[in-house]
């Protein structure tokens, strides 16, 4: 019992160790103090930045862009993935194209999207949506294609029509894999949004905050922005995991 409760605190160990190590590095001047501010300075910068500071508004802008990008990606990729996955031959015929663009770094598409959509929010969101959509598409299609044959046969033997098998069985069978795609997709969207915010004529967003702080040599601010981005990525993943646990309670059982 006592042991179990102690185990709950295990994840804290790494965090504490990291902070202690950080303190030791600052205190022992292992790293140039200009490059590595103390944890206290960093967290103070994070606090003042998040509460009413520029960091808070940049954080929200990045959240908004990532969410839009993911929604657009999911809105296109989920129906398309189901459509393609429902016929294995159809998917095989486009598989190479999907895999090719999935493997293409989305950041390489910035210039193209800039030319087409100009400098602005739209471009950042669309590049991120492009990257995320391919990841989601591929996962949804595989989820549909890998639906358990026995389950499909069971529905068929009960007289279910093809459409019914698709909506009642295949769709639900593909949900666990769809969520894997969504989680990977949202992570990728965040990466692309943050990178986009650093470069193409950006004035806001977490990427811009990191970049600006670095340009101004405001190291506590830069670390604060990095941690905020990390917290955002972790939080989004956690959010999707908890949605997944709720809606796909049967996964792996």
């Amino acid at each position: 019992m006592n042991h179990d409760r102690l185990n709950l605190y295990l994840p804290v160990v790494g965090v504490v160790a990291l902070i202690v190590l950080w303190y030791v590095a600052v205190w022992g001047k292992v790293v140039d103090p200009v490059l590595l501010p103390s944890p206290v300075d960093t967290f103070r910068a994070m606090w003042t930045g998040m509460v009413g500071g520029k960091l808070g508004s940049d954080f929200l802008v990045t959240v908004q862009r990532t969410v839009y990008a993911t929604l657009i990606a999911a809105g296109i990729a989920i129906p398309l993935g189901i459509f393609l996955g429902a016929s294995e031959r159809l998917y095989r015929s486009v598989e190479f194209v999907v895999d090719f663009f999935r493997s293409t770094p989305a950041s390489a598409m910035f210039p193209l999207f800039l030319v087409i959509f100009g400098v602005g929010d739209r471009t950042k969101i669309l590049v991120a949506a492009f990257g995320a959509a391919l990841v989601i598409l591929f996962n949804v299609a595989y989820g549909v294609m890998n639906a358990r044959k026995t389950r499909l046969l069971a529905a068929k033997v009960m007289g279910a029509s093809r459409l019914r098998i698709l909506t009642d069985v295949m769709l639900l069978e593909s949900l666990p894999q769809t969520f894997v795609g969504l989680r990977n997709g949202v992570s990728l969207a965040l990466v692309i949004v943050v990178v986009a915010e650093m470069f193409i004529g950006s004035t806001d967003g977490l990427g811009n905050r990191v970049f600006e702080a670095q340009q101004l040599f405001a190291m506590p601010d830069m670390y604060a922005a990095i941690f905020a981005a990390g917290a955002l990525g972790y939080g989004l993943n956690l959010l999707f995991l908890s949605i997944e646990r709720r809606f796909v309670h049967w996964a792996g059982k």
Partner: protein
Amino acid sequence: MLDPAGVAVRLGSLATAPAHVTVRRLCKSFGNSTIYDGFDLDIPRGRLTSIFGPNGCGKSTLINMIAGLIPLDAGEILFAGKRLNQIKFGYVFQNYREALFPWLRSFGNIEYPLKVMKLPKTERRTRVERLVTHLGVKIDLSQYPYQLSGGQQQLVSIMRALVVEPEILFLDEPFSALDYEMTLFMREQLQRIFMETGTTTVLVSHDLEEAVYLADRILLLSRNPARIADFVTFDLPRPRDSQTLSDGQFVSTKAHCLDIFQQEVRRT
């Protein structure tokens, strides 16, 4: 399900039970191996027929073809003159874990075929509840399949097959994924269900004791291409119980089946 005529047929002599399923000139091959080549079979109405034979002889293939899960290469299968799409039947898979829908509660799983038949919600409810009382099943049907034991899950999938009040019930090695204790329990459940409903039942089994214990007729298949090695009658009255296993008629029927089985296995 419980019409007096059906009961009367069941009380009649086994030999005169009319054919419910007729298989004629059935052919099936997978790649180079011919599983069936001009195979004929009559499955009697209102009886429990077990199918037993050497590994890979096509026991499951046979009921899968009868139930329309895999196409025939040639031949004809009729159900008292009707085609498969004109009758209601139930099918129970060996792998209940993959055959049940884990996103539906047990109740939802059982009523699913009624939903496919587009019955209204209240009627679906009544029919599932009627079946539950009829069978005396004591499972919490608001649980998801993965919350139940293996035996309970298989019971749920048997109920899903029975809820449409099928003319014929097919079971493909339904208990082979269960432990021995649960298998014994499920045999009793199946026997009770059969006695209650009198539904023509076809059971594929890889366990000779089970095949004989549960059956009115035991279909023994040969090696490929499969022929009927024997179609044994076993008419010990029901309910059968653990005493049955030491009954002289059971022992001699099982020994006879084993004999034929071994002849078939040794044949090269």
